[in-house]
């Protein structure tokens, strides 16, 4: 069945990835049979329990739209709230018997309306990483420098960061560790790579995430050490994830195509490509969907997606860690909360920590994915609080995350509400 209104613009996806294969948008949303099972796990519905903030409401909105029963407009407050408030966490999908990808539907609606949810300066800055990596690096270093000379602190004292245009700056400041040391080139033996690989071909490619490269060098180092050597490291490489979530699908596709081409050129596209960020992993494994409707690319994208690996694939967990402290897994991620990395992470933690690995209730919230905290400050704070509550309630000491960003966010919260616990990326589980 095709949508009554077929839009083939470059700004829309053609197919949505579901457990039963690829479907067009209208079919995909029609599989939502309004059972309502998803609502109680949606962090936004938990705070505002009403249909106009529920995953089911988001899907039904799209359906009404595609069936032309409503005229969508950004002036419609209810519509705007439905679209803006979704954290794209995919918790609803996990509860859904039909595996409905609500987060993807929300993204599609945002794209169709050209709705941008990030503060514009932050948006432009982060976009530079894909378009002008050199400029990005320059601005980032400048930012780090200004922070070092207490400019941000001064702005905070002068309450400039309370102005809505600068609120994100305070949040970013809270998020970052006191000392930000970008990963130095010299750590990876990249310089001598060409010579080394002439003798032994690389075993895999490591694509460090933005945070591993810029904020959490230890994450990059530990990941690197886990991987089968020799490792080919692709630095300063944007995947297109940021553009996919926060903006321009066409640009996201270009970046992704560039990555695919580069992967194909390297050892004939046979090398596994490893990432330390669950969000990047979930995005790259969807390459087929992102490039659907692009005949030249679809097949190549699928081949590429099959080579994507998450660090948990390489994390050995054989013996128990002699610790009596409770640990939890923080599943905050984009689009999805089930699949191989999640199962692996659970297995790893239960092998390492046995009974001290605490399982949470299905309604416990987690860290809003991918810097979502920047988008809706007021609501994010409530979700944050609930997230910490579950850690405090179970007296957990260590929280393991599947991305560096989630660890940063979590540590920011823990520092504020429950300093007894600490968040770490799962690669550090054995330390």
């Amino acid at each position: 069945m095709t949508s009554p209104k077929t839009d083939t613009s470059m700004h829309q996806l053609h197919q949505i990835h579901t457990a039963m294969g690829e479907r067009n948008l209208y079919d995909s949303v029609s599989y939502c049979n309004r059972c309502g099972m998803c609502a109680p796990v949606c962090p936004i519905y938990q705070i505002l329990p009403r249909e106009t903030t529920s995953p089911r409401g988001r899907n039904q909105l799209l359906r009404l739209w595609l069936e032309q029963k409503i005229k969508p407009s950004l002036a419609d407050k209810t519509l705007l709230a439905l679209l803006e408030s979704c954290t794209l966490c995919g918790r609803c999908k996990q509860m859904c018997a039909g595996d409905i990808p609500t987060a993807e539907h929300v993204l599609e609606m945002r794209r169709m309306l050209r709705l941008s949810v990030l503060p514009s300066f932050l948006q432009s800055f982060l976009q530079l990483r894909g378009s002008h990596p050199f400029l990005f690096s320059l601005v980032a270093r400048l930012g780090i420098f200004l922070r070092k000379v207490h400019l941000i602190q001064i702005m905070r004292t002068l309450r400039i960061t309370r102005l809505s245009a600068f609120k994100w700056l305070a949040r970013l400041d809270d998020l970052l560790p006191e000392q930000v040391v970008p990963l130095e080139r010299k750590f990876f033996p990249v310089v001598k790579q060409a010579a080394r690989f002439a003798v032994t071909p690389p075993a895999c490619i490591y694509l460090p995430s933005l945070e591993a490269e810029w904020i959490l060098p230890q994450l990059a180092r530990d990941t690197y050490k886990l991987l089968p050597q020799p490792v080919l490291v692709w630095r300063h490489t944007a995947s297109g994830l940021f553009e996919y979530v926060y903006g321009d699908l066409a640009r996201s596709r270009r970046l992704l195509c560039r990555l695919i081409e580069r992967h194909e050129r390297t050892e004939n596209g046979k090398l596994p490509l490893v990432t330390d960020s669950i969000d990047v992993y979930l995005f790259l494994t969807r390459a087929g969907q992102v490039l659907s409707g692009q005949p030249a690319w679809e097949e190549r994208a699928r081949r590429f997606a099959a080579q994507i690996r998450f660090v948990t694939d390489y994390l050995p967990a054989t013996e128990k860690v002699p610790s009596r402290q409770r640990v939890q897994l923080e599943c905050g991620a984009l689009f999805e909360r089930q699949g191989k990395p999640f199962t692996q992470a659970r297995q790893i933690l239960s092998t390492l920590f046995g009974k001290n690995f605490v399982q949470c209730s299905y309604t416990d919230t987690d860290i809003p994915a991918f810097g979502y905290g920047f988008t809706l400050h007021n609501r994010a704070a409530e979700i944050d609080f609930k997230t910490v509550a579950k850690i405090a309630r179970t007296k957990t000491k260590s929280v393991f995350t599947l991305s560096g960003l989630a660890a940063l966010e979590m540590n920011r919260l823990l520092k504020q509400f429950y300093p007894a616990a600490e968040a770490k990326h799962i690669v550090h589980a054995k330390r």
Partner: protein
Amino acid sequence: MLIPLEAKLALKQEVGSSNVQTDELALLLNSYDCSLSRGKPDLVITVERTEQVAAIVKILYKFHIPFVARSAATNHAGSCSAPSGGAILNLAPLNHIIEIDTKNQCAWVEPGVITEQLQHDLRPLGFFYAPDPASSKACTIGGNMAQNASGARCLKYGGTLDHILAAEVVLPNGETLLLERKTTGPDWIGVLTGSEGTLGIVTRIKVKILPLPVTVKTYLITFPSLESCVQAVSDLVARGVIARCMEAMDQLTARAIESFARAGYPIDAQAVLLLELDNAPELLGQEEKILQAVCRANQAQQFIPANNEEERARLWRGRRAAYAVMARLAPNVLVCDGTVPRSQLPRTLLQVREILHRHQVKASLLFHAGDGNFHPQIIFDERDTVRTNQVRQAVHGILQSCIEQGGTISGEHGIGLEKRDRMIYLYSRATLDLFARIKRAFDPEGLANPLKIIPPDYLKTAGTTAPLTGELLQLSEQIKKAQQERRSVVVTGRNLVFQTTKPALSTLGLNRIIHIDLTNYMVMAQAGVPLHTLVQTLRSHGVYSVLPDLPGTLGGAFSSGCFPGFYAHVTGIRALLADGSSVRYGGKLTKNAAGYNLIRLFAGAQGTLGMVTELTFKIYALPCTVLSPLPAQPLVKSPLWNAVKREVDPYNVFAWPQEETR
């Protein structure tokens, strides 16, 4: 409908303007539930505190605006759409567990508490809440009460009805009442449970909680036929082993599940039964032996016990996947809900498969084998109207076949809009009219969830009851005459409890034990049967009930209020009303969610609302704990009783034994 500005302002003042939504999108998003029905409201009011409900309802009453309570909107019946416009009251934010009292084994909750949330909070305390609808991770206790929801554990523990101890309800005029389970007078909580929000809005609920069972054992058992599966279940129940759940499915369903979930379900058997026992360890051993013997006697093919938590989880994974399998195959899954006497299950299920085949409709077929409740899960695409019509036809066929087998058109999902038009096939005009009178008594203006349950044109379309004969006809004539002459009579049995000297209408002529059913373990008897005769006769058939061998009649035991513990055992009732008409509700059914619960209306009403003429109730193969009578209490003439009395018996034909009569 047009909502007056004044009403909107008053509502906004009460709940805050952000909690009153009137924009088109919000209205559209509140016009559905999990059924195919739609009904767009004119405004959506989000209620954040229970106290607001009464104030809101008062405003709506003043402006004559209809209203519909909505919690999680997971119901399958079209119960919470607003077909005549008006207001939707979003009760989802009322989600606080107010108090858990493990000493008295109860908990007070707000209606929007998610069923699983209560379960989650009770678990660490060593307790659980027994009703377990499959939707418990999303549905609410208020919604459960409104639909009388139940789940796999229903046979052993009962449905929501059996687990509500008290409730605070806001009547459609805004008045707040606290209803408790009293010994005399109708069991109002029983009437309210399953009323789908058409009688008022429940704002606080006191539920029963139970200690967690010590040991649970799970088995997967396969049978060569649906008959042998159902017979095994009946034999087990008769031998006093009430399993915690008995979830069964036919071969097609087991195959679909196995290919999807790989839970180790055998695919060559005609029927697969997932059975769970819970009890103290020593008793569990005995129960397991009986189970094995019963399974052997019924040609069970495979008997697979779950030996550890992992295996148990795997077996349940299969059962739980049953819905997901279907949900992934097509955009819509219509979960049909019918109930028949357990003995009729095999025949009905074969008919259902035949109906599905005839209408070329794909479905899985699951059933709660213990209580005769089955759920074909039909898949289709509602965008294809031709197909959708075929599905509707098939559903009608299935419900009709339930009615023909002495069953009901809903065991747990309710009637709402979806099955409303089928009610005329299940109930006579007189019974539907009694429903309408109950509704009018609670809601004279017809504002609470209008147009649900009762077909609007039932007076024209519903059939009449089969003509009465013999003693019943005579009694009916006498009642009719009394009403015409504006006389009162007192319904009596042995006249032991109140020893009235007023003109009496005796049930003693109604003294037949109509049927002792040893397959369904139910007995159907007339109201005038003396308890002594009843107990002796049952005993001579090797069966037992909870009623004691005491002077008095069956009708008296049920109506006097001296045996409140008996109500839960009664599954069917017939009664004569003040106009001489005869009504019927229920039957040899362990579950019924179609219409207002007339059993609970007449229970303990001391003959003041009608004359109970026949009861169907459960019996057991082993002696069970016999009830002791409570001292007789005079009827409490609450405002609710007065309202119902005015509607049901306006000329006071059925007088209370000790009151002044004309």
